[in-house]
C-alpha cells in the first residue's frame, strides 16, 4: 500500500487545517436544542436540508434505545419514552460505533430522572432489559448441568461454581419479572394483567443461543448470588437458610443447574 499524502495546504499555500472545525460545528448543530439550528455559512436550501441529517441522527440513536428497552417503552408510553431518549442521547458520554449494546447507562439515567420518581420500578425493569441484552451478546461457554455432577453427590457442599459469562442476577424491590413477562410481544393484551405487589429477582441466563429469564424467591436469590460470587455450595446454603429458614435447597439447586448459570466447578479445599 503506497500512499502519497497530499500536503495540507491549498493552492495558495495557505494552511488548510479547518477540517476539524467543520466537523465540530456540524456535530454541535446536530445536537443543538433548537431544531432549526444549522452550521454557519449554509445557504437557505442547505440549512433547510440540514434537518434531514439531524432527523437521521436523532432517530438512529433513539430507535436503538427503543430496541434495547422495549418493555420500558411500553410501560412509559412512546411519547414519554422518546422525550427521555432525546435527553439521554445528549447526556450520555462516549459511545462505540456499534449500536448492538447501546444504552449501557440508561437504567441509572432513569433512576436519576425526576419524571420517573412516581414510577420507581421503571429503572429496575430497565436493569432487567439491559441484563437480557448483555446476556444475548455475551461470550459463549459450555454449560455445567446436573449430569456433570455425577459421582460428586457426597461432595456437593464443597463445590465452587464458575458463573457462565451470560448469567445475570437482577434483584429488585418491585415485581420486575411479572411486569416484564406481561409486556413481552405476543402476550395477550386483552384486559388487565394482575401484577403481584412484591419484590422479585430475575435470573437471566443464555445456556445455548436463547436467553432465559427465571424468577427466584428470596432464599433462592441469596443462594444464587452467593454461588455466582464463587462461594461454596455449603456456605451459600447457610446464607440462604439465614434469610429464609424454610429454604429447601434441593429443588432450587436443581433449578439453578437447569438454568445454565454455571460453566464449570472446582471441588474446593478438602
Amino acid at each position, binding site marked *: 500500500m503506497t500512499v502519497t499524502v497530499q500536503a495540507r495546504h491549498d493552492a495558495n499555500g495557505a494552511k488548510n487545517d479547518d477540517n476539524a472545525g467543520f466537523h465540530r460545528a456540524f456535530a454541535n448543530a446536530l445536537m443543538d436544542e433548537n431544531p432549526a439550528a444549522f452550521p454557519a455559512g449554509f445557504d437557505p436550501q442547505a440549512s433547510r436540508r440540514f434537518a434531514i441529517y439531524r432527523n437521521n441522527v436523532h432517530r438512529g440513536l433513539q430507535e436503538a434505545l427503543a430496541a434495547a428497552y422495549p418493555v420500558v417503552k411500553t410501560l412509559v408510553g412512546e411519547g414519554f419514552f422518546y422525550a427521555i431518549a432525546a435527553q439521554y442521547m445528549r447526556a450520555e458520554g462516549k459511545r462505540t*460505533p456499534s449500536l*448492538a449494546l447501546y444504552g449501557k447507562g440508561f437504567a441509572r439515567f432513569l433512576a436519576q430522572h425526576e419524571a420517573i420518581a412516581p414510577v420507581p420500578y421503571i429503572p429496575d425493569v430497565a436493569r432487567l432489559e439491559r441484563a437480557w441484552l448483555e446476556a444475548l451478546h455475551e461470550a459463549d461457554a459450555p454449560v455445567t448441568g446436573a449430569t456433570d455432577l455425577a459421582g460428586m453427590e457426597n461432595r456437593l457442599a464443597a463445590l465452587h461454581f464458575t458463573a457462565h459469562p451470560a448469567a445475570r442476577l437482577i434483584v429488585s424491590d418491585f415485581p420486575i419479572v411479572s411486569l416484564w413477562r406481561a409486556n413481552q410481544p405476543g402476550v395477550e393484551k386483552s384486559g388487565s394483567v394482575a401484577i403481584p405487589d412484591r419484590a422479585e429477582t430475575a435470573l437471566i441466563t443464555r445456556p445455548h443461543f436463547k436467553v432465559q429469564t427465571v424468577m427466584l424467591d428470596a432464599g433462592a436469590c441469596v443462594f444464587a448470588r452467593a454461588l455466582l460470587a464463587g462461594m461454596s455450595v455449603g456456605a451459600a446454603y447457610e446464607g440462604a437458610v439465614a434469610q429464609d429458614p424454610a429454604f429447601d435447597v434441593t429443588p432450587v439447586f436443581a433449578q439453578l443447574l437447569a438454568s445454565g448459570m454455571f460453566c464449570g466447578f472446582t471441588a474446593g479445599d478438602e
Partner: protein
Amino acid sequence: MTASLTDKRDGIFQPVVATAPLPARAGVGFKAEHASDVFENADPVSWFEVHPENYMVSGGPRLQMLTQLRERFPLSLHGVGLSLGGGEPLDKNHLRSLRALVDRFEPAQVSEHIAWSGHDGKYLADLLPTPLTLAALADLVNAIDEVQNAVGRRILIENPTSYLALPQNAMPETDFIMAAARQSGCGLLIDVNNIFISAYNLGFDARDYIDVLPADLIGEIHLAGHEQDADARDDVLIDTHSRPVASPVWALYWRLIDRIGAKPTLIEWDNDIPDWQVLAHEAALANAIIDASENCAKKPLRKVAS
C-alpha cells in the same frame, strides 16, 4: 454448533472454507428474518453482505448465525462506523474489533463509506457529509491507509448520498473519490442509488457522474430503494433502503456495467424489510441485467448493408 468455520483442534484459526472473491453476480444484505429462507435455498443470490458493527459482540446467536452463513456463502463486511471522513484519529478499539471479525470470518471483501459518523467520542449513528476539500482528502487518505494496514487488506470506499451542497466544497465529488482511491490504493464501491439521489437533490446529471468512473477502481456496486421526503415544501429524495430499486436507478446501473463489465452487485434493503421472495426478485433483476449486458457485449449488431 454442528459445523464450524474454524478448525479448533489447536485453538488456532484455520479457515476451512477458502476465501474466494465475490462473484460478479447479485448479493443481498443479510437479515436474520430471512435466515430460514436463505439456508434452505438462496437462489438467485450468491453472496451476502453485513455491517460488521452488528457483530462486534463477544458471542451469542448473531455470531453463530454469521458463522453458518459464512460456511455457505462468500461474505462482504460493509462498515458504517469507522468515520473515515471524520477528520480525527480513528477509534483504535473499533479497528481492533474489525480486524478480529476479518480474521474470524475471512470475508471476500471489506468496505466502508466516505462519510463520518461520530465526533469527539460521540457516535452519531448516521453517514454525515465529508467536505470536498484538499484538507479532508488528505485526512481521508490517511484514514484509509490506517484501516488497510489494520485489517491487512485493500478496502473499498463508497460514494456518499448528498442532501445538500456543503459551502466548503471545492472540487467535484468524482475527483475527490477517485483521488482518495488512487492515493490510498483502495478501490471504489459505487452506490448507483446514492448517485441518483445526489444528482436529484443537488441538480446535476447522474450520467455524467457514472460515465467518468474508472472500471479498474470499481470492486462492487450497490443498489437500493429511496423515497420522497415527507416535507412537502422541499423536493428531496431520501436514501431509505426501504423500497424496490427505482427504474431510473436500474437504467443507470445498466449504463455503468455496459461500460465497465459485470461487478458484484448488492441489493440493500434495511427498512420495512420485505419477504425473502421480494428481495430475491430484486436480485434476479440485477442478474438479468448482468446477463443481458454480457450477451450484448458478445454479439455486437451487424452493420446493415446499404
